[in-house]
């Protein structure tokens, strides 16, 4: 989708502000959001691609006005509601109960659940899955697709319809564009593709500043040989 999250190359944002001695979390609730979200992933309540697309679907105005962990909270609630795990009414009711000093499910020890969750969080996510052999080899010139899909994609706008060269063949990986929409993992070849800055930014490009993106084969077509050049 052409979402607000797709920020590469946008103008209008200023200097990068840095904070000296930045804490890991700026408030306790940020850590809880991270932990809850990780726990939901470990319980397979949503996958990584659904979770990214959950943030991308925030209203652009809200996205820009929210902090990073506010976006995570919005995403986690959105996905749990969509999947029927909780309802918004239930959440509002629980907030009112907690505000009134009542917690119907206070934090408690649940050794069996804890054990299962800790094992799940240690499991390595396997994004590499067997798929068809790659069509391109290192050095091949490619052209990225220039469509505007309504769903999730990892081909950013700034790199659509652009020429690049295959830098590395990474192997076969789960395809986010389908995995975010319950359409299966559809693993296939992933490549590191190198783009010259001038091919992305034209006359305003900085010298010697190529950009590398990890792109799936379905984002790519072979580049047509330039006119006047005879195929070797």
């Amino acid at each position, binding site marked *: 989708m052409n979402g607000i999250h797709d920020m590469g190359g946008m103008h209008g944002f200023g200097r990068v502000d840095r904070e000296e001695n*930045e804490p890991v979390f700026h408030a306790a609730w940020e850590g809880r959001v991270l*932990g809850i979200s990780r726990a939901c992933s470990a319980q397979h309540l949503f996958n990584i691609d659904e979770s990214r697309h959950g943030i991308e679907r925030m209203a652009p105005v*809200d996205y820009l006005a929210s902090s990073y962990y506010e976006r995570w909270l919005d995403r986690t609630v959105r996905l749990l509601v969509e999947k029927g795990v909780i309802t918004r009414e239930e959440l509002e009711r629980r907030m009112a109960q907690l505000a009134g000093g009542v917690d119907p499910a206070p934090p408690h020890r649940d050794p069996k659940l804890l054990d299962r969750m800790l094992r799940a969080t240690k499991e390595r996510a396997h994004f590499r899955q067997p798929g068809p052999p790659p069509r391109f080899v290192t050095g091949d010139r490619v052209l990225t697709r220039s469509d505007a899909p309504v769903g999730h994609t990892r081909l950013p706008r700034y790199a659509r319809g652009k020429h690049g060269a295959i830098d590395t063949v990474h192997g076969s990986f789960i395809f986010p564009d389908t995995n975010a929409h319950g359409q299966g993992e559809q693993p296939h070849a992933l490549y590191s593709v190198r783009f010259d800055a001038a091919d992305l930014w034209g006359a305003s490009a900085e010298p010697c500043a190529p950009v590398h993106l990890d792109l799936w084969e379905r984002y790519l077509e072979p580049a047509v040989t330039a006119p006047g050049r005879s195929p070797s």
Partner: protein
Amino acid sequence: MSDAHHEHGHHHREPESVLSLRVRALESLLVEKKLVASEAVDRIVGAYEQDIGPHNGAKVVARAWVDPAYKQRLLADGTEAIEELGFGGVDLKVVENRPGVHNMVVCTLCSCYPHALIGLPPVWYKSFEYRSRAVREPRVVLREFGVDLPESAEIRIWDSSAELRYLVLPERPAGTEGMSEAQLAEMVTRDAMIGVALVRSPAPAAR
């Protein structure tokens, strides 16, 4: 979450008490449904606060600086090489800085980052400013970070658009020949492993 407000402005925040309450309510519901154990959340938070941080990645860099064979393995297959040092859970590609080539990592679409090696990303890495500008004007951004590279140097930007994570192997600074692996690891900063800083030669007084 923010249905009720439509104020513009990057620095706007919902009042913290409402956010905190919403998070507690969410956790309470998931605990009640036996989907989440609060202690598991405690441990995840604790791991990021105490165990997982740039000191992990610094060990990998220092080992590569003192052991050329390890460096070869690290550049050829980062995923396998970090497992030798007890780190894992990530498909890793290590990119090497050398004279005339500087590498810099960003995630323009979200904020992908090699957590297992350098912890959670700082706010600036997740900021709209860094995400929008790092790919288009890396030299200007690097100068803001105090890194001024010659025009002839190539700056390779790695936009983490898939499930591979990128770690920059900085150049070992001059004047560190006699230092131990542990001393070297202490010099390696998070920012150097993202590629927005260089590892500086030790000050003469510190030698």
